[in-house]
């Protein structure tokens, strides 16, 4: 249940990414800025749901603090670094630079999502399944 909810959230972010990338490929700076803002907001919200609710609950339930969640947090940091680069490219109107950082971010996100969807979320569902409804509620409010 947690897995399904979070996987849906991944796909929503993917769709928003595609819109921003298409705008940048088309050379439209102001549409790219708008679409990028929507994508960034959705993705940062997703990272926040994990870092502030899901990961702490998982760590508390399993006692695994240095394991899979530590690697996921590190990759979140790498994503934020690319967001900074993309913002700098947009601020200077460099759409080619934006596209390069955007594609790097996409691949980083997707290999990260594969690990979450195949391994971490199923582990979360096993460890936290009973409280899934409450946890999803707290994540949505986060």
């Amino acid at each position, binding site marked *: 249940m947690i897995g399904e909810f979070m996987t849906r959230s991944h796909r929503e972010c993917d769709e928003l*990414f*595609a819109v921003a*990338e298409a705008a940048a*490929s088309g050379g439209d700076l102001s549409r790219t800025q708008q679409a990028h803002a929507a994508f960034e907001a959705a993705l940062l919200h997703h990272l926040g749901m994990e870092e502030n609710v899901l990961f702490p609950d998982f760590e508390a339930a399993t006692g695994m603090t240095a394991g899979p969640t530590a690697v996921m947090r590190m990759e979140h940091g790498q994503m934020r670094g690319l967001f900074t680069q993309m913002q700098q490219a947009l601020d200077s109107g460099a759409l080619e630079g934006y*596209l390069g950082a955007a594609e790097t971010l*996409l691949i980083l996100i997707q290999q990260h999502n*594969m690990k979450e969807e*195949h*391994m971490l979320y199923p*582990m979360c569902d096993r460890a936290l399944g009973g409280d899934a409804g409450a946890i999803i509620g707290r994540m949505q409010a986060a």
Partner: protein
Amino acid sequence: MTAALSLEQAPPLSVPLRFFLTAPVFGIAAGGVLAWAGPAAFASRWTPPALALAHLLGLGVLTMVMCGALFQLLPVLAGVRIVRARLIGGACHALLVAGTAALAAGFLGADTVAFRLAVPLLGGALGLLLAVVGTGLARAPRRHDSVRGMRWALSGLAVATALGLILALGHGWSTLPLARAAFTDLHLAWALLGWVTLLVAVVAWQVVPMFQVTTEYPPWLRRALAPVMWLLLAWLTAASLAGRVTWPATTGLALACAGFAVQTLVLLARRRRRRRDASLNFWTLAMVGLAAAALAGLASLVVPLPPRLGLAPAVLFVAGFALAVINGMLLKIVPFLVWLHLQQQLAATPAAPGRFVPPDMHAVLPEPRARLQLGSFALALAVLVAGLAVPALLRLAGICWIGAFATLGWNLVRAVRLYHAQRRRLATAA
């Protein structure tokens, strides 16, 4: 050899890169063999240059890249880390390089000693790969479709390897009695369909939806394709060894390949990412190539083809499908790995952040160079396919393939050189 659940990012960069960088060298050698032998190479599928070509490409390029990619993908797909990756990857690579070279030399007329050397070298390389990846998959914490599919692909490789080793033993010690024609057909079927096609399919149903933002492959296809193709191959094997008709199994295999290719083309046509780059064009070309190979295979069941055109399904499969997919994958995986490893070194260098930004994927491998790679590949493929009908073109095709693999190799080498230059910059910045 594998550690339990770990979401760590990647083995050392040198592990996959040594495989990726070697592949174009074998590709250039294959182009050289074709340019040197010319029309004689394709007079039938039994000519020594055709057999050398098949193994330079099948082992030296396709299996080489797939090995490197497996070492890289195992942590992502199965959550297992390969312990001592540098040692195991290095050994696997060295054995595969030496074994492929020995086997090709054997076909090109070297002493039977070459075959006798190739057997333990290739048996060791592929045995090691099967052991490491097989153990990793057995320990995967969750058995999703890709883990299951990858096991089918690995067992396809195991059968292809066993048949290949038996055939090579026959070349090395000619006293060994062998049903050579039947064994060769089966070896080819297991290698191309049971190993290459299944592994590409497993990778595709992960990477096509995620990297092109498409809907998922239908769940029934992901669940059924690998076991169905495996059973068809088993049926083909049993029928062939019993001397019964093989066309029903062959027809089923061709339809399964065509179905996978068409499904992928449909997904790609409906993708949400609108950007069309060289990698996507390689994937599209590959799926058209696979569908064309399947059609040519079906046609050859109905209309007896002259010996030269009899090679059409295999040529379309290897060059049009498998080599195109490999090119398309390398265009993404190598720039991403360069970025990822620079990023990791940056994180481990406390003084550097802010003063050093790792180059993004497009900076590592700019799109114009990727398009040049696509263009040189498409030209080589076109001349080769034309050469099936007009054999005088085959020497030119060989030269074009040398160009296509050199372009791929040069793109990879430039990416790796940029990686080392950036590492030095990072060290100075710190």
